[in-house]
């Protein structure tokens, strides 16, 4: 028998289940997207910044936010990349299909960026500042997947 290598112990294909609470602000956002196909942000009463994703506190001012405002659904690409290497998607355990467009979308009326897929029908049109719109899923369940992706509109 051949000489042994320095031994490596492998983990095997184990998985560990998780269950994440979205919280009341996130739940409101997802409910609105699911039922009314609209995006809701939270506005800081002090600095006026509109946050997407919504969260309870403006970190800059450290004050609570309760002022819901509708943003989007259209917007522009704030920044983006095109992913060209496959890696294991922690949500599915399978390799992510590549290439895919990874967009940071500045929805109209929002001050922060929403991360989502950008369709790559024409890569040359995927640019910082390009105008985009969401394509909603037919069957919406209340998650980020209720939007299938954003696409560039001319």
């Amino acid at each position, binding site marked *: 028998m051949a000489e042994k*290598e320095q*031994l490596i112990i492998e983990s095997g294909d184990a998985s560990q289940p*998780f269950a994440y609470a979205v919280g009341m602000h996130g739940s409101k956002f997802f409910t609105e997207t699911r039922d009314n196909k609209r995006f809701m942000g939270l506005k800081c009463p002090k600095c006026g910044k509109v946050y997407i*994703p919504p969260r309870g506190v403006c970190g800059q001012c450290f004050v609570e936010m309760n002022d819901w405002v509708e943003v989007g659904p259209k917007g522009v690409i704030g920044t983006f990349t095109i992913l060209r290497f496959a890696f*294991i998607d922690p949500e599915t355990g399978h390799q992510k299909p590549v290439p895919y467009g990874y967009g*940071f979308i500045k929805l109209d009326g929002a001050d*922060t*960026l929403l*991360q989502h897929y950008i369709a790559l029908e024409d890569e040359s049109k995927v640019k910082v500042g390009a105008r985009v719109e969401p394509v909603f899923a037919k069957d919406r369940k209340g998650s*980020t997947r209720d939007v299938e992706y954003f696409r560039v509109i001319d």
Partner: protein
Amino acid sequence: MAKRVAIVGTGQTFHKSHRPDVNGQELINEAVQRALVDANLKMKDISAILIGNMDHFEGINYVDCWSVDGSGGVMKPVIKLTTGGTTGASLAIGGYHMVASGMFEKVLIIGWEKNSESDTTGAITTAFDPIWDRQVFAGAISGLAAEAQGYMARFGACDRDAARVSVRDRKHATNNPHAQLRKEVTLEEVLASPMLADPIHLLDVCPRTDGACAVIMANEDVAGKICSVPDWIWATAARHSYTYLGDGDWGRLTSMEKCSKEIWKKTGIKEPRKEIDVIEMYQPYSFAGLIWIEDMGIVGHGEAPQYIWDGNTDMGGELPVNPSGGVIACNPIGATGLIRCAEAAMQVMGKADARQVPDVNFAVSTGFGGCMWTDMLLHGKKKPN
């Protein structure tokens, strides 16, 4: 009771893509032994130990517990500290705080990682929000690519400018026996290497590394007795910015800007470009070598490409950056920030051998990680006032 603090010894492993010949504890021990030899100290001289790495990267946590035989922590105070990519630099700042407080005379600081033992992208993903970040997230590269796109759109730089940074760091690394990758590349090779995530090519980014680094800090009562040229810590700064990746000001590293302003102000540095002699920057990809020296205030916004092309940051230039080869040549993540600190210390102490920059009075080291966070230290040859 507050004390001035100096680095009196450093030690590093010879960093490799994988080290199947040692386990984590043994890897740590290699760096610790080298630091003790460098400072001519024994383990009994050490008052406390500060250790850290990236949580979850090896699928084993609590390094403060299981590493004590290797770290030398048996029956000593041992504290773990971890802040994502900035871990190594945060360890240095934490060690500085411990010694500066006057509570501990000599502190041993250890950063380490065995990146070969898990899937880095998978591990990094666990550090980001499961609801809002994970669906599209693709590990460290995706955020960096977004930064690079933002910078190019705002300031007109191109991938060739960035490739020049990669060529520089990889050339510098040939002088550093501890670096994992010690091979020169050409501009054309960087640009012809596969596209990972536009605009980042494979040769624009750091590798995954197994390695450890240890640094010994001592207070002013003993530092001068331990070594003739200690590396004095003049100031430190740390800034965390936002919650979700979409909150960033893409194309600017605002945390770097705030850290450097704080440090220049604290120490009275007016013209960092003239007064700093060398920078060891936690620069995980080439574009950061452009963007972040602008945010640091070395040059103005949009001016970095020309500054780099003119050779100013090369060895022998006005302000050499990453004489060690930096992170692009070597990245044992939990150790990476501490390696920057150790390398800056070696520059001040005159121990950097083939990668020594002559006559270093001031050196800067930084850490980067998490959601575009920055840590920063100013090192000096003179004892601060």
